[in-house]
């Protein structure tokens, strides 16, 4: 591994920490319903939202009312996103006159954006009008992120509460998170990105004449739209010559900002952050990575403030940071290796003034190994899903890192809100295991952890592995599932495993290589996306209801401290233990088997 990769990682973590600390103060004020420092001028907008929607923000909700409000909001949101896609041909801001999105794709996309997953089976510039991008997709980028923040506020307030029946007001959390956090940060980031060269316009797509016509071959399609094959079963190809290139336009910068800050990840263009109009410079790339981690990291510090002990926030942050750095180092090391298949052909893969060295397949030369490897780790540790390199082309162990980071449950910083509430669930599991070992009733922040709480913890932890493993098993055992694989063998298995992992953990990044825009995958992944989000949120909110109702016991000499290195180790151990127990067999069939096959090349 090169020194520049480690320096980039160190600089990244330093900038994230420095920026997240003050933002944590803002988030704590937002979650506690207090005036937000420096942003009081936005209070009239907050009040206007309440007045228009007829909301009393002071009215507390029990966990069931909170959940029902959240589900009502999300269900209606999904129907709205579906309707906009299906009706986009009749709606404005559609200079390319794109028609209705196919029903199965619209269903998948609606569930995907409402759940903060932003899995994209479609190609943005060929499918979505500007109206669909701005109103349906970017709108949900804000609202789904705010929903995640609302849930973690409910859980943190429950931990801080003393015998309360309320976990807060969902509508107030939604409005305050959007008005005071997501909107201001997005405006600042969008202006910065536009300054770097990210486009922002409503122009029709441009036609550019190529200086040199390009001749290429592509599979010939039959009347049924499927590739034709000759008598030997090989695909029939046809030679084509391109003399012009269509350059897609659109309001990208405004969508790009919230795509990163909200850990959404759904790209305006199909190439996502590998596209020069989404991510034009090395500086834009660095800032986009920081934007992905900013709110999840800041929520750790907000958690510490809200429970009245900043050290608690630092402990959770430390556990996330240690896991992230360790996994990222593996990814950077793996991608810095020369590909043995190319090595056998005598291809020069050594670092030099002309190339970054290592595995450059599927990577932007603008970013190289370090910025691509780090981006892959950041986007999968946080449940963002934006990509600046094609994960299908990562080395087997380089691809294992994004898979594992998602399979840990998206708790290594994770999604906005969802990362912290997932990690707090693991914290409860950790103190429960520790309590069993030392023979004491487990406590976390003065709250006794009892049978009902552990049932909810177990449910929250087991939902996503069940969806991932059962979904993968269904896909690899069905013809429709296997038909989508581009590469047979272990890599093909990884493509399916990655898709289900990304969907159920609400990440949304694609390994690529899997043809997932089919009715089978759109429906299967759509269901995994929905259940992976909300079947986890329900036990988390039930947990919040249970914890809020309990008194907060005073710390005694017998209380296990949850702010020191021992607890951090315990927390990391709980995450690793659950991840390893659930996924090692599947990983062995995919990236591990592929690694062994690849490095047996003589």
């Amino acid at each position, binding site marked *: 591994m090169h020194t520049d990769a480690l320096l980039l990682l160190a600089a990244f973590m330093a900038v994230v920490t420095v920026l997240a600390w003050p933002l944590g103060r803002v988030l704590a004020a937002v979650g506690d319903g207090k005036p937000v420092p420096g942003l009081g001028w936005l209070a009239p907008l907050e009040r206007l939202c309440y007045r228009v929607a007829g909301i009393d923000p002071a009215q507390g909700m029990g966990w069931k009312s909170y*959940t029902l409000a959240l589900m009502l909001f999300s*269900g209606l949101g999904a129907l709205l996103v579906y309707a906009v896609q299906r009706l986009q041909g009749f709606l404005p801001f559609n200079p390319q006159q794109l028609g209705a999105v196919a029903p199965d794709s619209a*269903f998948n996309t609606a569930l995907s954006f409402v759940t903060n997953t932003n899995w994209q089976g479609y190609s943005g510039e060929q499918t979505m009008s500007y109206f669909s991008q701005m109103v349906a997709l970017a709108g949900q980028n804000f609202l789904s992120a705010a929903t995640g923040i609302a849930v973690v506020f409910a859980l943190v307030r429950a931990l801080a509460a003393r015998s309360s029946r309320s976990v807060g007001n969902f509508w107030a959390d939604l409005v305050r998170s959007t008005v005071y956090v997501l909107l201001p940060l997005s405006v600042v980031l969008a202006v910065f990105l536009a300054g770097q060269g990210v486009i922002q316009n409503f122009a029709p797509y441009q036609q550019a004449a190529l200086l040199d016509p390009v001749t290429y071959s592509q599979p010939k399609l039959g009347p049924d739209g499927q590739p034709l094959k000759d008598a030997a079963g090989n695909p029939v190809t046809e030679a084509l010559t391109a003399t012009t290139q269509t350059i897609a336009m659109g309001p990208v910068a405004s969508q790009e900002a919230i795509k990163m800050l909200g850990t959404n990840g759904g790209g305006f263009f199909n190439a996502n952050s590998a596209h020069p109009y989404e991510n034009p410079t090395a500086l834009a790339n660095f800032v986009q990575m920081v934007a992905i981690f900013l709110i999840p990291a800041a929520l750790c510090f907000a958690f510490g403030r809200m429970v009245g002990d900043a050290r608690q926030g630092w402990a959770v942050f430390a556990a996330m940071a240690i896991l992230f750095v360790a996994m990222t180092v593996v990814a950077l090391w793996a991608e810095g290796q020369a590909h043995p298949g190319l090595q056998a052909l005598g291809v020069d893969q050594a670092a030099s003034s002309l190339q970054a060295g290592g595995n450059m397949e599927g990577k932007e030369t603008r970013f190289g190994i370090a910025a691509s490897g780090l981006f892959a780790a950041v986007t999968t540790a946080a449940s963002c899903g934006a990509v600046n390199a094609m994960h299908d082309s990562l080395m087997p162990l380089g691809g294992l890192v994004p898979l594992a980071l998602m399979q840990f449950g998206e708790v290594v910083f994770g999604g906005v809100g969802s990362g912290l509430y997932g990690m707090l669930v693991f914290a409860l599991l950790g103190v429960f295991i520790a309590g069993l070992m030392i023979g004491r009733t487990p406590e976390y922040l003065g709250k006794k952890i009892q049978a*009902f*709480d552990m*049932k909810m913890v177990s449910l929250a932890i087991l939902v996503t592995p069940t969806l991932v493993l059962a979904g993968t098993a269904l896909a690899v055992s069905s013809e429709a599932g296997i038909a989508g694989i581009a590469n047979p063998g272990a890599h093909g298995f990884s493509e399916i495993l990655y898709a289900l992992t990304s969907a159920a953990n609400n990440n949304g990044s694609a390994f690529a290589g899997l043809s997932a825009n089919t009715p089978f995958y759109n429906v299967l992944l759509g269901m995994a996306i929905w259940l992976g989000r909300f079947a986890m949120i*329900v036990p988390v909110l*039930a*947990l919040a209801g249970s914890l809020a109702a309990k008194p907060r016991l005073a710390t005694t000499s017998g209380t296990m401290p949850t702010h020191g290195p021992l607890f951090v180790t315990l927390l990391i151990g709980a995450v690793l233990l659950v991840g390893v127990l659930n996924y090692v067999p599947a990983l062995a069939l995919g990236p591990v088997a592929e690694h062994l096959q690849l490095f047996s090349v003589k």
Partner: protein
Amino acid sequence: MDILNDLVFIAATLGLTGLICALAHACDKLGGAS
């Protein structure tokens, strides 16, 4: 045909939303969190 597809997917969205509400009800029935 597309209208039929639309109805199926709208029903599926409502059904999935209802499923989550049923899960919340089941969690509540487990007790302790009301």
